[in-house]
């Protein structure tokens, strides 16, 4: 019998072609957006440094940021611009592809914007597809085992239409959040935060000449403020030839930019709080299931005490306490909200996974691991956690929907709760459009409202799909009924 390679590196060395092909395409895909990623990281570092008491290193970071801005990135507003203006003879200047050499006329802003959006979503889909393909390559060419239990779970998910639909919605939402700065027809800083620091050129219809105006002034002329007033609905241009895919807000700012950026805030809060509470829940579930007895009782009492605190009152209290504190300033209260959710939601998650954890702790393989002297930590992570992690994912995806909707609800209420102005948050768009629901400016509240419902439903459907995928009996049950049916026939 010939010697088979045993480690993954040896297996790749023995048959490098599929891995190299995959890696080459992946690097090519990555290179397209590397600039944006590096810039994103630098901006994050910069934000953290600003928070620190010393200013040391800030200049270096700023320099690095400028250097990173020079790295060409395919899907950016520099490569595919949609600002720009019409010349009196009707040609578009500064819009894609006029910015490219040897092209002297641009597309209408809406087409430029659409091309950029299609490219961004297409890129995200291609990246996801390539990563999934990579897993298949690994499975086919390099994995030691012909079959693992995960294969069946993936197969079950692949046949779960409702779960897949949820996954698509979640994927679109995440793409929107990740590519937020690129997707909007304008940027948050330019359009919402400092509109009077930026100027735009437009064709003055009355004089037939090119004029310049600050964005802030233009915004006041672009408001969607209900019946009898101006309205710029979805898929329309305002008087300054700016394109608004979702229309404008009552303040005249662009709703699509607001929504894309708001998606980022929602996702940040949702993911961070679920990461905190999920980690706490998993850790405590392992500890209480492994040690049982008094440790478990202490955790039950602690968890129940936290569960008995009304979350809304806690949020109001902490929002008031931290008003003006630096912790409350980050993301206009978004970080604080994520922390509060994270540390007050874990008992609910923990309660949900404690049962499965206790169940797996009675399995003989856990005893077997202990009986040959495995450490508690390794026993918990290797022999108990994998069993619980599926349940945790199901509940996490349900809770993340809940957190997103609660964040929006708090922002909707306003008054220092939730995420404050100027950081975009979907709930605030609904609040802004509240008075105009029955007017021509219906889009202001309706679009964010529908999107929240879609996203939350998407997360729930995704959770449903995971639950059925990790449960080997979800299909066996159906098979049984079929057999019974066949026997009766």
């Amino acid at each position, binding site marked *: *019998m010939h010697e*088979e390679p*045993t*480690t993954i590196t040896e297996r790749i060395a023995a048959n490098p072609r599929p891995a190299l092909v995959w890696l080459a395409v992946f690097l090519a895909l990555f290179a397209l957006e590397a600039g944006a990623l590096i810039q994103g990281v630098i901006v994050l570092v910069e934000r953290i440094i600003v928070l620190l008491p010393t200013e040391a290193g800030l200049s270096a970071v700023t320099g690095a940021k400028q250097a990173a801005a020079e790295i060409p990135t395919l899907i950016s507003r520099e490569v595919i611009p949609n600002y720009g203006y019409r010349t009196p003879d009707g040609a578009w200047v500064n819009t894609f592809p006029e910015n490219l050499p040897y092209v002297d006329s641009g597309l209408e802003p809406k087409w430029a914007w659409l091309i950029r959006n299609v490219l961004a979503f297409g890129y995200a889909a291609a990246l996801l597809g390539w990563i999934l393909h990579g897993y298949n390559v690994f499975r086919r060419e390099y994995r*030691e*085992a012909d*079959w*693992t*239990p995960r294969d069946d779970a993936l197969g079950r998910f692949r046949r779960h239409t409702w779960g897949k639909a949820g996954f698509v919605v979640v994927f679109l939402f995440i793409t929107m959040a990740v590519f937020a700065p690129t997707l909007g027809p304008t940027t948050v800083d330019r359009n919402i935060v400092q509109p009077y620091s930026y100027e735009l050129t437009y064709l003055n219809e009355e004089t037939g000449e090119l004029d310049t105006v600050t964005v802030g002034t233009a915004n006041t002329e672009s408001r969607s403020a209900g019946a009898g007033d101006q309205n710029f609905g979805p898929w329309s241009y305002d008087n300054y030839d700016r394109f608004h895919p979702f229309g404008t807000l009552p303040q005249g700012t662009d709703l699509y930019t607001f929504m894309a950026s708001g998606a980022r805030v929602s996702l940040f809060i949702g993911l961070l709080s679920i990461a905190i509470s999920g980690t706490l829940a998993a850790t405590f579930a392992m500890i209480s299931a492994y*040690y*049982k*007895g*008094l440790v478990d009782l202490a955790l039950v009492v602690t968890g129940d005490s936290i569960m008995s605190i009304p979350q809304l009152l806690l949020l109001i209290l902490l929002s008031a306490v931290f008003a003006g504190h630096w912790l409350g300033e980050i993301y206009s209260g978004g970080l604080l909200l994520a922390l509060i959710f994270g540390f007050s939601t874990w008992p609910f998650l923990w309660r949900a996974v404690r049962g499965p954890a206790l169940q797996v702790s009675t*399995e*003989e*393989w856990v*005893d*077997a*691991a*202990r*009986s*040959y*002297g*495995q*450490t*508690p930590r390794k026993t918990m992570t*290797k*022999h108990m956690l*994998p*069993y619980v992690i599926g349940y945790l994912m199901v509940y996490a995806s349900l809770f993340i929907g809940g957190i997103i909707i609660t964040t929006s609800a708090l922002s909707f209420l306003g008054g220092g709760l939730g995420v404050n102005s100027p950081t975009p948050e979907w709930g605030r768009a609904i609040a802004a459009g509240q008075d105009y629901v029955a007017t021509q400016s219906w889009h202001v509240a309706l679009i964010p409202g529908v999107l929240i419902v879609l996203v939350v439903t998407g997360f729930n459907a995704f959770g449903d799909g995971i639950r059925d995928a990790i449960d080997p009996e979800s299909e066996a049950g159906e098979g049984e009924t079929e057999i019974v049916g066949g026997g009766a026939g």
Partner: protein
Amino acid sequence: MPDDDPPLLAVEDLHTTFYTDKEDIHAVQNVSFDIEAGETVGIVGESGSGKSVTARSIMGLIESPGRIQPGSSIRFKGEELTGKSEKEYRKIRGSGIAMIFQDPLTSLNPVYTVGNQIKEALRLHQGLRGKEATEAGIEVLEAVSIPDPRRRMREYPHQFSGGMRQRAIIAMALACDPDLLICDEPTTALDVTIQAQILELLEEIQEERGLSIMFITHDMGVMAQIADRVNVMYAGEIVEKAAVEDLYNSPRHPYTQGLLESIPGRNVGKERLSTIEGDVPTPNAVATSCQFAPRCPEAFEACDRIHPSMVEAEGYGRDHTAACLLYPEDLSEADRIDHHRERETPVEEREPTEDPR
């Protein structure tokens, strides 16, 4: 046997109690036995007689609400194990004492390959990693006669048959290189032919490696095949202990006699197989009388009052003891009762009990 050399494992007055909300279950009471290096000691008894709790007590795997009572002593190579911290106990587990569980279906984690789990044990006890661990893993699989071990290392437990799985579990225990192997009904879930193979394998391994084995079973037939010495347990107590031939040739305790009479193979030609009427009582109090008395065909009035202690019950040979008021045989009934009463635990140390009937 030389007395100055301590036995590999010495269990003395082991008493394990489970404090449930409803009642206290004294699952194991005053259990004492020794295991010498290289021998196989069997523990036999019905379900619920405390065999597994004894094994788990030795491994330090008694979980809340269970507790080993003070006064119990478990010495391994002369080292006291009771009262050890988890951390200290981990040094004994695996490399000192390894355990094989009853159900080969659930003793292996279904989400990892068999190789992964064997390598885990190898890494823990022999510090082997990567290629070395794989080779060593293949070696132990070969040692338990699993064909094509290189391929088997990469397979998941569900791809193994029951017998193969039990072999893999034995391989895992061997990977720890223990001195004592506790087998908790390792053959119960297997069919008879596989049972025989596993027993043979255990004997082979014992011969090769000089292992001591503590073998737990409820099957008198299996016990006869593998054990050197046998302890018979009933309701948390050892009621008879003897070398295996002595026990099978001349069982002294009425319970052991009953057990042997209910084996079909030993009682060929009988019209009906005799059975022991009734069930094992739940030991919810410290015993103050003979626990077997309600089911005993030879019980007399004193059996309900006096808790018998282990006394010489010589049949053929040495070291044959039984906890029964019928022994020692050379004394008269009154003397026997006095003999046992004298050796009884003083009443004030006991908790009040109700009449078992």
